[in-house]
């Protein structure tokens, strides 16, 4: 088994843009490509059958009679109350989606630091598409003004509010959560009855904060669990790993023969 190098996320460049289109500010258009810039580094494991080490698969099982249900026999249901569903056809759901568009529309500019990170969802890097003059102008003017554009984008048929800002020499687009996707802390009863602190205590707390103040550096934090698992994988690779065998079905056997024949024919060409 070949050992695959585990890439460092911050050096990774995706092969293809995730989206391409134009940033539209009034009458000005800036053609851009959008690339994924954040990654979830967590290891993912698969469940195996303990006895023979073969991977397990999930099946959709009817809660009433335990029969296995194929995909084509499924529909989506919205649970209105316990065990009462409204059924939706795929067509109905598709019709409700907004049409996708190739525009990032900027409505206004705000002070970047005035936005609470609570709203931030996912960030993407923008790179210039075709001309880089318009891109450079937008980037430089955002840096100069310390502002960020607020607007909207439709990606994969969902519309998101967004923030367009400068980050390390590039334009970054961050999708935002909608207001009703965030629950306000003041909904919590406990927070409504907070006591005012005494002045002496407050002075001490402020002093501690000031003593511990410094520059923010994310590199001071490491995922030790991830690091340990990585070491374990390296160790286990030297020992025994269980290789999953794919059961070759009857249909696939003929396919294999056909593939072998064609591959040898193509080699001759």
């Amino acid at each position, binding site marked *: 088994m070949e050992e695959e190098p585990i890439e460092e996320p911050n050096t990774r460049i995706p*092969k*293809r843009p995730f989206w*391409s289109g134009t940033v539209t500010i009034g009458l000005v258009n800036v053609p851009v490509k959008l690339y994924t810039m954040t990654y979830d580094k967590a290891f993912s494991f698969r469940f195996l059958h303990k006895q023979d080490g073969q991977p397990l698969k999930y099946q959709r099982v009817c809660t009433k009679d335990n029969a296995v249900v194929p995909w*084509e026999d499924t529909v989506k249901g919205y649970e209105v109350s316990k065990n009462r569903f409204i059924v939706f056809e795929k067509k109905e759901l598709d019709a409700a989606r907004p049409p996708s568009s*190739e525009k990032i529309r900027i409505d206004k500019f705000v002070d970047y630091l005035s936005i609470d990170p609570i709203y931030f969802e996912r960030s993407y890097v923008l790179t210039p598409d075709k001309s880089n003059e318009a891109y450079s102008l937008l980037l430089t003017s955002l840096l100069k003004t310390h502002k960020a554009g607020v607007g909207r984008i439709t990606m994969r048929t969902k519309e998101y509010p967004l923030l367009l800002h400068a980050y390390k020499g590039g334009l970054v687009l961050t999708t935002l959560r909608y207001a009703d996707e965030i629950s306000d802390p003041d909904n919590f009863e406990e927070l409504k009855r907070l006591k005012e602190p005494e002045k002496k205590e407050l002075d001490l707390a402020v002093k501690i904060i000031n003593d511990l103040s410094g520059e923010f550096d994310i590199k001071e934090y490491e995922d030790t669990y991830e690091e340990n698992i990585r070491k374990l994988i390296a160790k286990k690779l030297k020992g025994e790993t269980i290789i999953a065998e*794919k059961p*070759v*079905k009857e*249909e*696939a056997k*003929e*396919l*294999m023969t*056909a*593939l*072998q*024949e*064609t*591959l040898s*024919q*193509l080699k001759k*060409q």
Partner: protein
Amino acid sequence: MWLEKLTKVDFTNLDKVLYPEEKITKAQVIQHYVRMAPKMLSILKDRPTVLTRFPNGIDKEGFYEKDMPMGTPPWVKTFRKYSETAERTINYVVCNDLDTLVWLANLAALELHMTLSKIDEFEKPDLLVFDVDPEPPASTDDVVDVALMLKEKLDGLDLRSYAKTSGKRGLHILVPLVRKYTFSQTREYVHQIGTYLARESPIVVSEFSRIKKPGTVYIDYLQNSHGRTMVCPYSLRATPRATVSYPLDWRDVKKGLKPEEFTLSSVAKSESNPWKGMLDDKQKLEKSVD
């Protein structure tokens, strides 16, 4: 031998029935494309491909897909081009190897349609096509008549032509070209020949019209346009009997020809290659039509 060593494609739902009437499964569809690959790939090479997909079989809704599908693996070649008809940039799939062809088949892309030009000179077609299509009650025999008239005319212009079934009721007649003409030139040339034949025969229609006159045979010249596609030779069609768009020897283009007999199962064992050398037979449009 492991399947993984033969292809990069991870097959899914191989036993799914895609042609219910003939009980043809996805495994059989993939096998068809694997068998046709040696002849098909040389024609598909460097051409943007448009897919017609039927993930739940031909009885269920299918869809036309110009853009590369979601989850296209990085090893698949693609071609980015602004489409004037769609008014947006399209990332076309370019099927240059067996893995890509097999991957498309696994996506239930039953029909593969290709452009008449290649990505390196997209504005200069290397194929010219006459799409000959009957309007009932015109029969296949009527199509054959028109195709033979067309061949005679092309012979007179010193042009060697190649015929295939469309996989439905019509025939496609192709002339491979030196890449020096624009689409408007090839379109005009095909149109002129169509107009000439329409003068010779009362059943030939050479002008596009939304309402087709019953009993006529239409020679479509508009397919010779930027970004337009033609069903690829050896491609399956989404018809109940799993018909195939299949190359013909001109000697077999005669009364009694039955295009519906070229099906997934009937072409499987066919060794013949009536189009041998077609792609190298690059010709110039030197003689004027009239």
